[in-house]
């Protein structure tokens, strides 16, 4: 059976991204190996340490930045993460200084919000209701 074990997000600075994705969002560091000037750097959910890994990939390719800027201008998230309670998570993250392009919004079957990951991307939080 095919399954997802790794997915990636482009970041403008891997050290900054690691701090944001662990200290602020709450992921755990899984792998950190040097690859040339960069790192093979992945994080996982502490609720599922053997689950899908998120690769924090340097956005050094010029097309990556253009892609990030165009998505961000229209408010389109580069990734979606599940949380238990979007409203509570938005309150917690705002207290830590995180900026949201979309506040917690009840869309019927799902509550979503969209935050700025400070590394070039918007990220959606979602909870099924």
């Amino acid at each position, binding site marked *: 059976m095919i399954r997802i074990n790794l997915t990636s997000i482009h970041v403008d600075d891997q050290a900054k991204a690691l701090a944001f994705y662990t200290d602020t969002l709450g992921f755990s560091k899984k792998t950190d190996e040097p690859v040339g000037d960069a790192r093979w750097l992945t994080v996982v959910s502490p609720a599922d340490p053997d689950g899908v890994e998120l690769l924090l990939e340097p956005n050094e390719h010029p097309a990556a930045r253009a892609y990030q800027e165009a998505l961000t201008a229209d408010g389109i998230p580069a990734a979606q993460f599940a949380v238990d309670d979007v409203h509570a998570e938005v309150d917690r993250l705002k207290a830590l200084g995180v900026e949201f392009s979309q506040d917690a*919004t009840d869309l019927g079957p799902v509550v979503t919000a969209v935050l700025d990951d400070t590394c070039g991307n*918007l990220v959606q939080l979602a909870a099924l209701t």
Partner: protein
Amino acid sequence: MSAEPDPFRAIADPTRRLILDELTESDGQTLFEICSRLTMRHGLTSSRQAVSQHLAVLEQSGLVHTQRRGRYKLHHIDPGPLRAIVQRWLTTGEEPPP
């Protein structure tokens, strides 16, 4: 597309009226949020490009203004042009007969 701002043409379309409804409930939304609301709340499956074109009509009529905040663009409702419509005909201030 007429260069003259035309709120009548802008609000003639039901999708554009829904966009104004959603901006009235929560002002200052990205294109992505507007598309999400139209899809999830109203079952509209308009493409992002179609919604973008609707927003362009609303913007041209003066009913929607866009503003950049940081790296993203937010859409704000401006009911000013509708006030002009009301004042054009509802000038007596009299209540309608029961």
